[in-house]
């Protein structure tokens, strides 16, 4: 190819990928507002200020890494890729250790602790969990986003996720409205199962890390065999 032709192609390409208009000024404006609000919260309620800061960091992390719980479950089925699923497993392994330490410290200070005293998300498990999870799983795939993903995409400017959020609000209100029915039918007989009460604290942490590790390895093997990215 003649050099003039190459130059022409180069110029054409440059026009095609004209740099996007910088949105940095808006970024600085927004970040200043966020910092001012942080300082306001810091003065009135320290816990709120921490939640505010962590929430913003979660938003940045999820947007920057393209982290998506829906894709972590959908991609293995649809395109055979498990890289997001494995990323979730890594997050679970790290928080297993951290949560374990925090729960251990908290519980050791309370003789004869009750389940309600243990920090974290500990709730009844039963048929209701299965029905809820299946509904949630179908919903997140057809809506193209879960709770966290919806918030992240609203931040990126997706109008559709505002519709998902409206649906979410309707769904939670309906679910809360019908709660009496489900409670009498199933939930009241569901037991809260806190695994360390059955297996001991340290064994639970070790076994959970092992199970997550095995899942990680299996997911890697599945990816190598099935991912369309590898073909």
């Amino acid at each position: 190819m003649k050099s003039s032709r190459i130059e022409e192609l180069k110029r054409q390409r440059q026009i095609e990928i004209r740099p996007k208009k910088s949105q940095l000024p808006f970024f600085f404006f927004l970040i200043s507002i966020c910092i001012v609000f942080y300082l306001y919260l810091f003065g009135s309620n320290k816990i709120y200020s921490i939640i505010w800061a962590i929430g913003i960091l979660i938003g940045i992390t999820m947007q920057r890494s393209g982290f998506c719980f829906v894709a972590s479950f959908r991609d293995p089925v649809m395109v055979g890729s498990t890289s997001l699923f494995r990323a979730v497993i890594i997050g679970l392994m790290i928080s297993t250790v951290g949560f374990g330490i925090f729960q251990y410290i908290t519980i050791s200070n309370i003789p004869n602790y009750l389940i309600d005293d243990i920090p974290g998300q500990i709730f009844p498990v039963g048929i209701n969990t299965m029905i809820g999870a299946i509904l949630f799983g179908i919903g997140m795939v057809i809506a193209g986003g879960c709770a966290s993903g919806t918030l992240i995409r609203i931040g990126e400017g997706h109008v559709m996720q505002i519709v998902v959020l409206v649906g979410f609000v309707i769904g939670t209100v309906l679910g809360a409205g019908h709660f009496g029915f489900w409670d009498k039918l199933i939930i009241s007989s569901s037991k809260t199962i806190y695994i360390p009460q059955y297996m001991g604290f340290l064994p639970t942490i070790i076994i959970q890390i092992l199970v997550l590790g095995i899942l990680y390895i299996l997911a890697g093997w599945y990816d190598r065999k099935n991912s369309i990215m590898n073909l």
Partner: protein
Amino acid sequence: MNLKHRLLKKPWPYWVGGVVLGLLNIFLLFTTGSAWKITTSFLYLGAGLLNKLGININDWYYFKTYGTKLNVGETYFSNSLMIMAIAMILGSLASALFVSEFGIKKIKNKKQLTFALLGGIMMGYGTRLSFGCNVGAYFSAIPSFSLHGWIFGIFMFVGAWIGSKILFKYIL
């Protein structure tokens, strides 16, 4: 391509996201005593709106049995979960603006709109039965060593599988 560019402008690998989210969740638990959760903020939003419309939902069985879980001085519109939800939206917005990726992306068609609304309702309803979404009943529940986190994860996968089949058949 220098390091600064790679760190700031390029997307992070997924595993970095997993590590940072895991650490942030631990930090949240250590400092506030509660793990990361989201969907109850959506219920609060709905509950607050219904209250404004004159419907007294505090009489509902759900709120009577479990209480509102709001702390003293908190309302349906102003509470820690709402702060978390708004902060996540703004964090994502800030991040998108930083790399100049923000843009209004419109809804493509009616079908997409219907499935978005339907999917949202299904998720919202599901979270009341299972006590949380894939954050509260999975990403925060498994590290809390509550069995419901594992059961939720397994059956969410079943749901995602069914959803993928629906997606192939009706949407794509």
